[in-house]
Every structure is written in structure tokens, then in C-alpha cells.
């Protein structure tokens, strides 16, 4: 089981499960829920939070919250 916080830059993944956390509701409202595809885009200067591509939009998620998201890695994102 991988966690979103372990995903490398430009890594692509599919969300398996969002564990209970304060941000769960907010994350789901933004489209982070089982089945959704995420791409890690870039991180803030201090390495945290990181921005992920969710449903075509960039969303910033903190490492602590990302650690509550169980993912399955898929192929590398093809950069245009």
C-alpha cells in the first residue's frame, strides 16, 4: 500500500481510499476520492505542501493530509 505523500514528482496514481482525517471532506469535495487520478506537480519551497493535478486543476495538499490518502501507482505522466 502506497501513500500519496510517498509519490515522486510527476508520478501518476489512482486513489484507493481516503482514511479519516480533518481534510477528508474538503478533499472529496475537490475530487480526491477512490478512483480519481492524481499527478504530483510540484512542491512549495520547504517541500510541503505539494500541488497535485486533480480533475484538471492544481490542488495543494499538505504532507500530513497526503499521508492519509492510499494510492496505487500507475504509469509516468507524459509531459507535453
Amino acid at each position, binding site marked *: 500500500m502506497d501513500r500519496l505523500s510517498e509519490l515522486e514528482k510527476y508520478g501518476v496514481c489512482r486513489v484507493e481510499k481516503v482514511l479519516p482525517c480533518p481534510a477528508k471532506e*474538503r478533499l472529496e469535495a475537490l475530487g480526491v476520492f477512490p478512483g480519481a487520478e492524481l499527478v504530483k*506537480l*510540484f512542491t512549495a*519551497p520547504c*517541500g510541503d*505542501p505539494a500541488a497535485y493535478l486533480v*480533475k484538471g*486543476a492544481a490542488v495543494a495538499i499538505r504532507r500530513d493530509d497526503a499521508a492519509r490518502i492510499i494510492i496505487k501507482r500507475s504509469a509516468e505522466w507524459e509531459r507535453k
Partner: protein
Amino acid sequence: MGKEMKKAGAAKRKKRPEAGESRVLLIGNPNVGKSTVFNALTGAARHTGNWTGKTVDSAVGYLKGSGRRIALCDLPGCYGLEATSPEENEVRAALAEGGASCAVIVCDASCLERSLNTALQTLSVTRRAVVCLNLADEAAKHGVFVDTEKLSELLGAEVVLTSAASGKGMKALAAAIVREASRGGDPVKMTDPPKPMWGEAARIASQCVTRDTDAFSARRLKLDRFLTGRLTGLFALAALLALVFYITMRGAEYPSRLISLGLSRLLQTVTRLLEKTPLPRDLISALCEGGLGTLFTVVAVMLPPMAIFFPLFTFLEDLGLLPRIAFDMDAPFRACGSCGKQALTCCMGFGCNAAGAIGCRMIDSPRERLIGVLTNSFIPCNGRLPSLAVLASLAAACAGSGGGAVSALILTGFLVLAVLMTLAVTKLLSVTLLRGKPSSFVLELPPFRRPKIGQILVRSLIDRTLFVLSRAAAVAFPAGLVLWLLSRGGAEAPICRVTAFLDPAGRLLGVDGASLTALITGLPANELIMPMLVKLYTGAADADMAAMRAVLTANGWGLKTTLCMTWLMLFHSPCAATLLTVRRETGSFGWMLLSVLLPASAGVLLAVLTAAVL
């Protein structure tokens, strides 16, 4: 605090339209241009901005050409109807209240799938809806095309493709709203909030959307990586800040001198005209030297920097830079027990602390929101920036350099100190009075958008510059009158006694009695401090930035006095308007008092230390 906000919401709803009118609700995700659509439909000038959570309360306006029959209600942006943020609560309350004759669902054509959850949920509540597919131009630019006929068929509602910023499709949208609102049927009424409908959203989007390129363009990624990079991120932001202040200071010098000259001529003319009337000499002197003189000084000192700073700031806001600042600053703010959204409210505080305190509503956790409100006046607002600019250039001169670049650098240093102080006090509060762990932080980074220069000028000059200036002017005139009254009687004047009385305290703080008096008279509006001080020193009113510097140097201001005055100015009690806002936002007099004590004691402490060391 929650109760307080709910009360404000209820009051707003009562103001909503009366019988005989149709009410139309404007619903959609954050940052899809709802406020722009609202402005285009109603002809209103509601402030728009390129970041999530800008609209924290709802506004009502009438559809243009409907003859006040159709009232549009612009609700805050929400990602769905099931979550529990203040925005979503407000939207749910508006839907549950019922009575609206239709809903306008604003969607983002460039990112349809994400808008569809809110759209589908709203459509499951009511069939009386028009779907406004906004940001069509942006979608086309990114190579995204939406089959509107197919979408309309799948959603079972009329779909209108628009680009509200350029006005495209707005007539068709207005016509569709009129059609839908006057069609008979049950009013919009929600009983239970619907379940999330992301699966359905993905299915519909896959059938309607075709794209040429990848959604996240390489150019945008490059820019984002630069603005958030390990080395480049914070440097780029600080450099940008320095550039904005450099342009403001250099650009303001000449116009400030010109306005000062013009207004002092005007003052002479007015005085001469009044002297021909039978009015008593003292009254004329009080009006012209006291009231008008102070008023004109404030205008000359404040107008040019504001007229430059506010458009520049609005430009950065429209570009979409503010959420990147929140993103970059999240880690430091989080280390101090808060979140990056507080950095956003700090940015608003550079404009106006009252606006910054209201902006704190977008911070989700009540604890962090309270911290944000209490610490906002640690950021110098536009009322204090011009004065700080004068002090920075004075400090540069004391250090042996008169260049604009050096003073801009010093000013940036002052502002960085203000930010560091904000962080320190945030930390202090979160380990003492407002203990708690930082909550979660989920923030959308919107695409960069090309700002509309014309709109920026109109909006920032009218909305912000004139607003702040008129507030300052309203206080300047009476304050000038009072000061004139107090300074009658030469050396025996009450004001001289006050300054003499405050002098020992002032010396302790590294300044003098006159400076302290000016700082205290600056309570109604911080803008007044420097003009007051010049008036106390010289008795004359007219002064532009350069003349002000000369007056201060003539009164023996060295590096020590300048620095001490800077600390007292930088960390000064919030102005009266901000205090009222803090009282309203926190719902308590005690918190308001604390919002005075925190910055004031920081300023006094720094000044005493500097005075002792230098």
C-alpha cells in the same frame, strides 16, 4: 464567532428581494468567474479576484433590462453541497430557504468535470436551472472544447456558453434566465443535501469534452515551478514585493510634489476669497489653516502612492499570484500554528487592515481565523506605507545614500520584519492564549489569467484608492480643526503642553514628545501621523514627501530617531475602522483590546531596545 457570522448571514438574507420579484441564485465552484458573470448581468461592480474564497458573503443585484423584476443573488463559491465550510453552509442555507424561481449554475468550460459535481447536485434539487458554461475563451486557448448540445441533453437543462470577462454570450444568458424564471413550476427548494456525484460528472465530461492538448500546459507548469521553487520561490516573491514598492515610491515623488504645490495655491485662493467675506478671522484661520490644510496634506501625501500601489496589487491579484504566496508560505505559518491562508490575508492587509481582518473569514479553522484577525495589523496598511516610505528614505540618507533603490530595499526590509513579527506573534498566540494544532490546508491554485488593464484601473482607483482616501479625508478635516484649536496661544498652547508632557516618554522610546503626540493623533486614521508631525514641528500644513524629509532632518532626526519612529509606526494600534472590524469579526471587546495591545507593545519594546542600543 460562528454565531456572529451566522447572524450576519441572516441579516443579509432579510435584505433580499420582496414580493413581486423573482429571485435567481447564482451557484458554482470557486474561481469560475461567478462574480464576473454577476457583474456583467447586473451592471454592478462587485470586486472580483483570481483566487478561491474571495466572495465570502452573497450580494444581490437586479438583472439588467428586467426592470427590477429579476433579482440575482451571487452566492459564495462551493465545490459541492455536502461539505461544511462557511461558503457551502451559506449556499445550502440559500437553497433550503426556498422561494427562488431558478438557479444559474456557473461552470468552468476549461475544467468541466470538476464543475459538474456542484451542477449535478444542484440539478438534483431543482430542474429550474440554466447552466452557464463560463471561461469559454480560456478553454479555447487551452485547446478544450465542450459539446454544449450534448451537455444540455445529458444534464436536461439549457446550457449557454459564455465568456463573462469579454461579455461574450451574456445576452443569451440573460434571455435564458428570463425564460427559465418566468416558466411556471415549483420554486427551488432543497430538503436534503444530495450525495456527491463525481462518477456521473466523470461520465458526462468524457462524453462532452474534447481536448487538443494536455490540461496542464507546460508553460504554466514552468511558471508555477519557478514561483514555488526551493531557491526561486520566496526570492521571486520578495523581489516582486520590492519592485512594487520601488515603483510606488519613485513614481509617487513627482506627482506628490505637484499635487502639494497645486493644493497650497488652492488653499491661498480659498483663504483670500474667505477673507473678503464678513466671517471672523479666527474662523477662517481655523477652516483654512486647520481643517483644509491638514486635509490637503493628507491628499498630497497619500493619493500618489495609493494610485500606484493599488493598481499594481490588483494586477498581481488578477494574475493569480496570491494563492501561490499562500502555497509558498504555508510551511512557515504552519510551523507557527496557523496556515498559508493567513499569508493571503496578510497580503490583503498591505492594502487595508480592515479588509484583511474581514478576509480572514476564508480561514477554515476558527482558532486560526481568530489569530489571523488579531495579527493582521502587524502588516502595515496603505495608510502607513507612504509614511514608512518617507522614513525608509530618511534612513537611507542617514546611512549615506540618497538613491531610490536603497530606500526601496530598506522599505522591503521593514516589511519583511513586519511579516516575521506576524509569524512570531502567531506562534506566541498558538502556544499561549489560542492553543491548538494547525488544522488541514487544502487550497486550489488557479490558472494564471491575463489581467484586464482597464478593469484594474477602474476597480482599484474607485474601489480602493478613493475609498481609503475618502475615509482618511473624512477624519483629516476634523482632526486638523481640533489640532488648530489645541495649538492656539503660542508656547502656552495646550498641544505644546501635551508634547512637553509626553517628551520624557518619547525620549525613552528614542523619539520626542511631538512624534508621540502625532502617533496618538493617528488613531482615527494612521495616514495622519506624518502630516500631523510635520504640522507640529513647523505649524505649516503643506508638505510633499521630499519636504517632509527636510523638516524631519531639520528637527535633528538621525538614524536612531528614524528607526525608533519606524518601529512605532510599523507596530501601531490599528486604526478606528479596523478596530470596529475586529470587534465585529471576533464578537468580543476583549479580543479587540488585544489587537491593540499586541502591535503597540511590540513597537514600544523594539523602540526602547533600539534607543538603548544606539
